[in-house]
């Protein structure tokens, strides 16, 4: 990576090396990011800024580096998605119902990042409770994609849209995201950045405000595959406080980036060739296949026969869990409580508080979830969706059992759309954005987004690779090969 340009434009790997060589201090690196962050207000990526904390952490990092004890992330300025509870710093999951909520605890992920010396610049915008694919359901208003063409403001995707926008605009070196149905991979694709959703259970969910517990998984978003490997190494690992966290050793992901995938088998799922997919996306997918073949991998057509049911299954299971997970926001203990009229009782307190505190998309999902779990509909919806989920998982297991090492697929049916463009669309049309991404969440598999190039409009496009459970190391290596072959280096023209 080039060391030219302001330090905030560097990759984590480049910054790490420069910090270790004493070419820059963590304070200076942080200052460069804080300056970029303040200049980037037009992107609405950061919703709570923590410059004082960042400089304190940077100073501590400089001492650690001087002492020769410098983990990879020591002194690296990051943005943290608002869904992570950060001790003493507002954490609202971009919802009015958590207005003013300041956790007295640190999420496992941020605690691990801070232990590794990372610097937090602030909290990043997102869809309310991570529900959405445009960051338009945020109580802070939408984040804006730094990629602007035809003078149209575009979405950075969602729900980790603030993270993607901040990374793409070089406001930070890397960011945390969460991916419940594509919320890391889709924003990465829309902004020309990288992101990995790890295997379910690889990263602790403790301290992450829950959307759909059986699908939520945190992961890094960055400027390169190598940066993902570095960040994931610090974020991952068993956590006794999360019963769904896996007690497995964390490999050295960066060391796995050999660039050698000769003899590996890449599956191309025929069910992903959906009707109406733009020719540009199809062509991009074909180019990805060629690149991996050129690198010595074998391209194999595979079938995931139940993949076509993934989207409806996801939009039953995720709202069902959300309707229960969000029941705690009742105005009793923390967050927003509606002003009550004389004579109002507990029922009015619940109704008014939740009507005021939750945005329309969150309310819709709570209602859908409540409906699909209700007596009389449980079997028709929730139970059937669980069965479909088991079948989807089995499809992948069979593919991997047949020797497939990774699966290459599109991430999104389109490149980034304009802000407000989906306002008139039905919820189902909006949900179609997730058609390629939700399968990995339902099956619990790792998936990584790699930027591939620009479309005819000049907007970034990416592809995803899905891997075997717990094989993030192998998956990242495939992504590394694809990244190098694609050679995507374009940056958005600074307009903000």
């Amino acid at each position, binding site marked *: 990576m080039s060391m030219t340009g302001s330090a905030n434009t560097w990759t984590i790997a480049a910054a790490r090396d420069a910090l270790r060589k004493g070419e820059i201090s963590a304070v200076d690196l942080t200052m460069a990011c804080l300056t970029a962050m303040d200049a980037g207000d037009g992107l609405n990526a950061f919703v709570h800024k923590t410059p004082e904390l960042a400089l304190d952490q940077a100073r501590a990092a400089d001492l650690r580096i001087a002492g020769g004890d410098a983990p990879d992330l020591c002194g690296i300025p990051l943005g943290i998605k608002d869904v*992570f*509870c950060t001790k003493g710093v507002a*954490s609202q*999951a971009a919802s009015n119902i*958590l207005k003013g*909520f300041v*956790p*007295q*605890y640190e*999420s496992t992920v941020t605690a691990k990042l801070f232990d590794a010396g990372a610097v937090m610049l602030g909290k990043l915008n997102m869809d309310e409770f991570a529900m959405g694919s445009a960051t338009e359901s945020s109580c802070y208003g939408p984040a804006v994609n730094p990629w602007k063409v035809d003078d149209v403001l575009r979405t950075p995707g969602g729900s980790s849209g603030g993270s993607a926008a901040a990374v793409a605009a070089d406001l930070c070196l890397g960011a945390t995201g969460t991916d419940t149905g594509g919320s890391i991979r889709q924003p990465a694709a829309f902004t020309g950045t990288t992101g990995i959703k790890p295997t379910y259970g690889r990263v602790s*969910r*403790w*301290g*992450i*405000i*829950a959307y*759909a*517990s*059986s699908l939520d998984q945190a992961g890094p978003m960055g400027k390169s595959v190598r940066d993902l490997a570095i960040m994931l190494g610090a974020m991952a690992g068993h956590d*006794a*406080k*999360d*019963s*769904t966290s896996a007690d497995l050793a964390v490999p050295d992901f960066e060391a796995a980036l050999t660039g050698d995938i000769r003899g590996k088998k890449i599956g191309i799922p025929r069910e992903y060739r959906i009707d109406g997919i733009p020719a540009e996306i199809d062509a991009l997918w074909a180019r990805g296949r060629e690149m991996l073949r050129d690198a010595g991998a074998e391209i194999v057509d595979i079938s995931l026969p139940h993949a076509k049911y993934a989207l409806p299954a996801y939009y039953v299971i995720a709202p*069902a*869990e959300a*309707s*229960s997970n*969000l*029941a*705690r926001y*009742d105005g*009793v*203990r*923390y967050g927003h409580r509606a002003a009550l009229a004389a004579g109002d009782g*507990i029922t009015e307190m*619940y109704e008014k508080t939740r009507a005021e505190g939750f945005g329309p998309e969150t309310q819709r999902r709570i209602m859908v979830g*409540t409906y699909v*779990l*209700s*007596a009389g509909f*449980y079997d028709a919806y*929730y139970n059937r969706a669980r069965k479909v989920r088991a079948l989807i998982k089995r499809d992948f297991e069979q593919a991997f059992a047949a020797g497939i090492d990774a699966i290459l697929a599109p991430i999104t049916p389109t490149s980034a759309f304009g802000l407000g463009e989906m306002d008139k669309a039905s919820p189902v049309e909006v949900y179609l954005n997730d058609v390629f991404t939700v399968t990995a969440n339902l099956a619990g598999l790792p998936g990584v987004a790699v930027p591939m190039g620009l479309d005819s409009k000049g907007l970034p496009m990416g592809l995803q690779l899905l891997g075997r459970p717990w094989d993030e190391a192998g998956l990242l290596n495939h992504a590394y090969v694809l990244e190098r072959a694609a050679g995507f280096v374009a940056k958005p023209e600074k307009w903000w």
Partner: protein
Amino acid sequence: MLDLTYEAPKPKVIAGVKHDWELVIGMEIHAQVSSNSKLFSGASTQVGAEPNANVAFVDAAMPGMLPVINEYCIAQAVRSGLGLKAQINLRSAFDRKNYFYPDLPQGYQISQLYHPIVGEGEVLVELSPGVARLVRVERIHLEQDAGKSIHDMDPTMSFVDFNRTGVALMEIVSRPDIRGPEEAAAYVVKLRQILRYLGTCDGNMQNGNLRADVNVSVCRVGQYEKYQASQDFSHLGTRCEIKNMNSMKFIQMAIDYEARRQIAILEDGGTVTQETRLYDPDKNETRSMRSKEEAHDYRYFPCPDLLPLEIEQAWVDDIAASMPELPDAKKARFMGDFGLTDYDANVLTADLESAAFFEAVAQGRDGKQAANWVINELFGRLNKEGKSIADSPVSAGQLGGVLDLIAKGTITGKMAKDLFEIIWNEGGDPAEVAAARGMQQVTDTGAIEAALDALIAANPDQVEKAKVNAKLAGWFTGQVLKSTGGKANPAVVGAMVAQKLGL
């Protein structure tokens, strides 16, 4: 252990205006698990703490907080299951029961609807010697307790205390095998006794640590047998559930009231509505809480924060190997080893402390005599002073010492009671106290003989009467005992009277 066979009791029959009716009762017992920390958090379960002092972040349902299963609570549930001779499910799972209430911070209770930790078991409920009901237990599942709402601290506001939130409960669900109010109370007594023996629930009903939901229905004579043969509930009447009972007396009164209410409806040609009811002890009536139509839709689904719970058979075996002797076995042993009556054995095995006290007294002594002394003298005295066995001023060793003095012939039974009284009030070693106070029965036959000779000489009429009717010789015995101040041995005096009068 004795092989005791029992006869089933007759069901309670209530005569209506038109027909006789039988009762069918099933119970759900909520037993708070004895543990130091909560089911899914490390917060203390200690009662009596300041409100909201024992609340972990997860108990308060703070955003992003996750439950982690407390292994000790699982062990307690397994121990309880083994105590009820129940199936232990090596794989169980937790579900969420969703409803809104301020004392339920998560908006759901984590429970086990679909896959409980404990399956089918049984409780033998003895009603009188040789008569017992075998009540089948359908399941035991683990769940979180709720917090406490406080409505009387402020005229406009309610308060909540989350100290109890998340404490582990076992819900023990019986089959509808209970056939009357007395059986229902006896079932709770027996279950409570077993749990207390096991140390899995302290059984404190006043604090609500053990409470019962009682399902009551009535049916015509003969219908229950049809249900038994087919396990088809359509042979039985519609049930009503009386919630949250925590007194044996009120359980019986509520069942009786509820059965008569249902009978009156049915005999009037009406139908019983399935609903949840509350018992009002002041008015001795049950009142509708909510009907089936208004019932909550709890939207149960598997809790995605917890993986299915898998336990090893070897772990269960370890718990089984550490099980204490249970009430039925202990009672049989007391009857066999110490020759106790059924009644005495029941009294002495009612709780572990009494049983242990008795065993310490009875060990190496006359078991029946030990039982008499423990039940009549000690328990009588404890009851009178409102003391529990744990607070007894007389230890098992001291009571044993008193009994030893009787056995050696050092003191009489009468003197033993006086000695017991002294030990109760002043303590001390019984042998030393008896010696210091000159409590020694007269065994000098010369002195007794002299007293008797004088008595015979002074009462020739009594002598003649005794010779005609031997029973009247007791008068001489009594007079001698009186004149020696209770220190003479009654058996020795009696023998001498018989000999002197030539009886």
